[in-house]
């Protein structure tokens, strides 16, 4: 996995200049959404549109995970009838979407963020509280 190697190498070699935290947006209740406001620390590093697009896609993915549709109801009723033992063998819809989100973040990191000296951390590793953006020192400038 060449990409992960490069990320890890980067983490070890580059110094962390700062960390920016994108907090949760609770205006629609307790559903998992993140604020799309563009943090000022990233102004020099990345295009505002691109960043907001990333956060918006993440928000849509989380909304899909928590969507109250017929599929989630069927899953819930089936689970209730089997005394919730069905969860021991089946993966929930939420978990499936979380895997999709992890893949999306990895892909965004590889394509957009790592070349700019940034790193997005999957929110699930921070308890779905924040999207952590690590800003690495820009070696090309410090030379």
């Amino acid at each position: 996995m060449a990409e992960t190697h490069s990320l890890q190498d980067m983490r070890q070699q580059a110094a962390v200049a700062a960390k920016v935290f994108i907090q949760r947006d609770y205006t629609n209740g307790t559903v998992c959404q993140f604020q799309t406001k563009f943090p000022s620390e990233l102004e020099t590093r990345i295009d505002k549109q691109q960043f907001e697009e990333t956060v918006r896609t993440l928000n849509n993915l989380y909304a899909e995970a928590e969507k109250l549709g017929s599929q989630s109801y069927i899953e819930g009723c089936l689970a209730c009838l089997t005394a919730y033992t069905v969860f021991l063998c089946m993966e929930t819809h939420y978990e499936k979407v979380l895997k999709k989100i992890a893949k999306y973040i990895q892909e965004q990191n590889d394509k957009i963020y790592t070349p700019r000296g940034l790193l997005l951390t999957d929110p699930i590793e921070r308890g779905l509280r924040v999207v952590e953006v690590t800003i690495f020192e820009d070696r090309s400038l410090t030379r």
Partner: protein
Amino acid sequence: MMKNCEYQQIDPRALTVSPCSAQNQHTEKRAQRPRRKWEVFPGKNRFFCDGRIILARQSGVLPLTLGLIVVTCGLFFAFDCPFLVKHLTVFIPVIGAVLFVFVVISLLRTSFTDPGILPRATPDEAADIEKQIDTSGSSTYRPPPRTKEILINQQVVKLKYCFTCKTFRPPRTSHCSLCDNCVERFDHHCPWVGNCVGKRNYRFFYSFIISLSFLTSFIFGCVITHITLRSQTGKSLVQAIQESPASVVELVICFFSIWSILGLSGFHTYLVASNLTTNEDIKGSWSSKRAAEESGNPYSYNSIITNCCVTLCGPMPPSLIDRRGFLSLDEAIPTSSASEIELPPFLAKNDAHMCTQSTKDVLERMVHSFDLHALCPPGTPKTSPLGMEVSSTTATSPEASPPAGCSPQLADQPMAAPCPLFSSRSSSKRDSLHSINPAFRLASPSPSLSRATLIPGDAPDTGFIPLP
């Protein structure tokens, strides 16, 4: 410039040079096996089966609950079923068995599932939040209010800052002092189940009490039928009871359980239909009496069916604490030394607050030596959010009061989390100068007092280096 002196962010890698961390590194190497995250979990939980099963520190009366259910059902199957199968139908033990299995599985799922624990903030996050509070805080003597107001569905909701978890609690989240965790959609801490009831296990809890209501009513009905049938065959009631004494035991247990369990089921059905938690209902957060203008529950979908579906059949959120994940190498070291670093000896802003601080330290040390809980004085500032909950719990008398069966153990005891930290001091105190500990930063910056002063005597006996 002054502001910059007040706190500095810890660079986790700088910790590796301190003697304590070097010691930890050494012990890590000696251990020589990757540790899982549950082993360093900061809350008061117990883990079994290598992190698969999570329980509260005190299992409460869970063994009693299980014992009562098993004994009652055992007596039922052994003494009442043979008679009833002969005189009525064979389906009676079948229905009984199905209900029994359902009850036990629901109970175990409720007890052993992570209720929706929110992991604590990483040091970087805590520092970031601190920075934001500071820039917007007032420069008065009093500690800045640790609340944030947000709009949810056009309604103002206050988010409180959790001093233990170092983050602003999401809406509907509450900190359980018994488990020392913030739990999402916190309902209550149930001693009968030995765990908190929150977002992830509420549906299990609800199915447990509903199925238990059916089970106790079913057994009660069957036992009454049994005794009636026996006494009808020419014998008196007393004779019938003498022939089957176990039935009386079951009758007594069921009779007393039914009142509380049925009441509890009814109460929780009301909560589910209105998308409320026990916590919110008791505090009267959304009751119309409190608010001057019309304010309702902002989380309700205003339809009973939708509320029920959402609460009980909604998507199952994942556990956020990742118990069985492995600690990465850079996490393993700071985790153990971070607990020593979160000591209070840092930059005070003025003497008055250092006085309060040191008094709090003494109190907390006393508390720790008396083994926590019962003796924690409720007046300490850190516990003020919880203290408020206590006063409102005792003051308000909820209309649909939860019966004794599951008395919500709201935060009637202050958090004891920092107490163990006090006793685990080490030589890394010099490094802890730059620690971030919002719990103890009481006042906002005042330039003349940016040089730290230390109060002798009761202050924590730490090494102290003034910042340049």
